[in-house]
């Protein structure tokens, strides 16, 4: 396990980064419009459709796709598979950034953004959303703590503020040192806490819709919705790592780390298998397969989710040839991720319909700009951080 992460030595302003910048500007304009004209000014939300793209994608999907953080932490640190440690850092960074943006997305979506602290003082323990909010809030801090040693590693012993600020150098140095030492001893608490909190709110995100049985389509409304959300978060964690690692290593021309990714996909067969089993089992037990041929857009969306998002990638991964090819693994991982994205969109948007007052919904351009803008900003910051902090494995220092 003698791997070593290091900052990157690469050019920062690439065409890709410039494209991100364009999306960021469009998103910023839409956000300004939201905070001057109101949610109604930039979105197609209505009284019949209180939650749309922002909750379905920025929040619910964001949380699901950040699952790589706690699943890799569990594997490498808790279950002691240190072999996988090279991917824990990028996964941790994705999770920390992902949750930061989930909270930013929430701040944009809720009507009274400045009041977001209120649930910390006014508790309703009957509310599923209360539990989700508390877990996400604590987990975000846990993620920051877990990330701190990476910052300390880079700056410890070389804090060097310019000019007048230099008087603070010894102080900051000391804080970094002590903080790092304390964290080193207590890190195991944060790691386990992170996994526990993740299990709690990943599942509870599914419980959110249980209170609205008349609004969510029966193909998705099931009492085991929390279990499905949890198992799908488990299943999507490693594919997210595969996806990210492949994109980053190929766009930055680093080692592909296939030696780690290939065994990760073996675990995925098992985890995705559980999710698939529950999904199908649920469909047969509740008899909802009767909807499958009715041809509505909701049913079609369900079929796409099941077929392309679960079955095809699962079968693909059964083949050794796929698992050992960079392209094959990447394709399967992308399909699994797509499947979870569609699932969250289905539960929160496509499958949701207010029977009395529904007036149809498709996200307004403003909503789409905000969502794309947030995603672009996330990628942009990721790029900055891997450029300056030791997150990614240094090229040519391949572990055992």
């Amino acid at each position, binding site marked *: 396990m003698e791997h070593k992460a290091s900052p990157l030595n690469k050019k920062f302003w690439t065409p890709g980064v410039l494209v991100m910048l364009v999306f960021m500007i469009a998103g910023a304009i839409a956000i300004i419009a939201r*905070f001057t004209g109101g949610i109604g000014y930039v979105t197609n939300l209505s*009284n019949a459709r*209180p*939650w749309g793209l922002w909750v379905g994608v920025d929040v619910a999907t964001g949380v699901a796709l950040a699952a790589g953080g706690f699943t890799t932490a569990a594997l490498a640190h808790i279950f002691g598979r240190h072999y996988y440690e090279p991917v824990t850092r990028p996964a941790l960074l994705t999770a920390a950034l992902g949750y930061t943006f989930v909270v930013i997305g929430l701040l944009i979506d809720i*009507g009274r953004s400045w009041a977001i602290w209120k649930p910390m003082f006014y*508790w309703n323990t009957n509310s*599923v959303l209360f539990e989700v909010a508390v877990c996400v809030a604590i987990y975000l801090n846990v993620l920051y703590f877990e990330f701190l040693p990476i910052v300390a590693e880079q700056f410890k012993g070389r804090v060097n503020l310019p000019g007048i600020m230099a008087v603070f150098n010894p102080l900051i140095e000391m804080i970094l040192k002590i903080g790092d030492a304390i964290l080193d001893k207590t890190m195991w608490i944060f790691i386990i806490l992170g996994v526990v909190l993740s299990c709690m709110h990943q599942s509870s995100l599914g419980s959110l819709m249980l209170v609205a049985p*008349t609004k969510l389509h029966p193909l998705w409304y099931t009492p085991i919705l929390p279990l499905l959300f949890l198992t799908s978060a488990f299943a999507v964690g490693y594919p997210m790592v595969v996806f990210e690692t492949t994109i980053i290593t190929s766009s930055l021309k680093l080692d592909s780390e296939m030696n780690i990714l290939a065994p990760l996909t073996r675990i995925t067969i*098992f985890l995705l298998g559980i999710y698939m089993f529950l999904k199908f089992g649920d469909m047969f037990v509740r008899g909802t397969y009767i909807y499958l041929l009715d041809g509505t857009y909701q049913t079609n969306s369900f079929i796409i989710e099941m077929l392309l998002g679960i079955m095809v990638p699962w079968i693909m991964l059964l083949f050794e040839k796929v698992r050992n090819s960079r392209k094959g693994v990447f394709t399967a991982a992308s399909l699994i991720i797509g499947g979870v994205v569609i699932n969250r969109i289905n539960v929160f948007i496509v499958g949701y319909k207010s029977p009395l007052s529904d007036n149809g919904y498709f996200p307004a351009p403003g909503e789409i700009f905000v969502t794309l803008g947030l995603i672009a900003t996330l990628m942009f910051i990721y790029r900055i951080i891997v450029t300056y902090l030791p997150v990614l494995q240094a090229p040519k220092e391949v572990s055992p």
Partner: protein
Amino acid sequence: MQFSRRNFFKFMGVAGASVAALPSSARAWKSKAPPDSYGCLVDLTRCVGCRKCEEACSEVNKLPAPERADCQCTIFDRKRRPDDKAYTVVNRYFTGKLDQFDNPLPTYAKVQCMHCQDPSCVSACLAGALTKDETGAVKYDVSRCIGCRYCMVACPFEIPAYEYHNPITPKVMKCTFCYDRISEQGGLPGCATICPTEALTFGKRKTILKVAQKRLKENPGKYIDYVYGEKEVGGTSWLYISSVPFEKVNLPALPNKPLPKLSETIQHSLFSYLWSPLALFGVLGAVMYKSNKVQEEPQNKGGA
């Protein structure tokens, strides 16, 4: 290195621990309905669509005057819903009923918050901004609201509306059951005081439920033998009786079970005293201790 059999069981052990204990601590869910609350009966056979209740409601709640308050014809061409400017609206429905000259007969139906006995919105609100009062009113306290709109997602009657065009301080808007008025001795909701045909009857829920049942019994054939709201979603403060099927006037068929029951039962059986997170923490801690010991790698586990 492979995903060995041993790892498989480790995973299973942890997953099993968190699922297996699910029902053990489940305490029976109990209704939190107030014992002697108020209610209001709407008799659709008496409503003539004068829309006076809309006007009275706007007045007592300081809302803008209803859209074309005097109009009793073309306004009905469109099905309206309560929104951020009106807590109640009256709609007209042609349900296929004919008068003696074979002209279609209209049925008018007032909509407002039903003030459910075990309201989904109250269960959903994370900050407790919505509460069920002793009077039966479901009250909204804007000082706790964060504007997440989960109450709107939860409400089976699609009642709470939102001030979508207020960028900074929007509120959830819905019928208050005229809480300030009915909590005073002898007070009536604005809408119930004004109704000229006595289509609206306010009183203790138990009493008006009897009134409704008496009317059904004394006028055989006139009404459908059913009090809407007696049992729907565990019961509502507002009750409806009608001569036409309730679904035809947009009163949805709903289960008799209070809708918060399932999610509250799951939440409490999993998280009361935080027993399951603590148990999971313990199991994971043990696994971590063991797996790191086995490999005899005493270096730091975090970050790197």
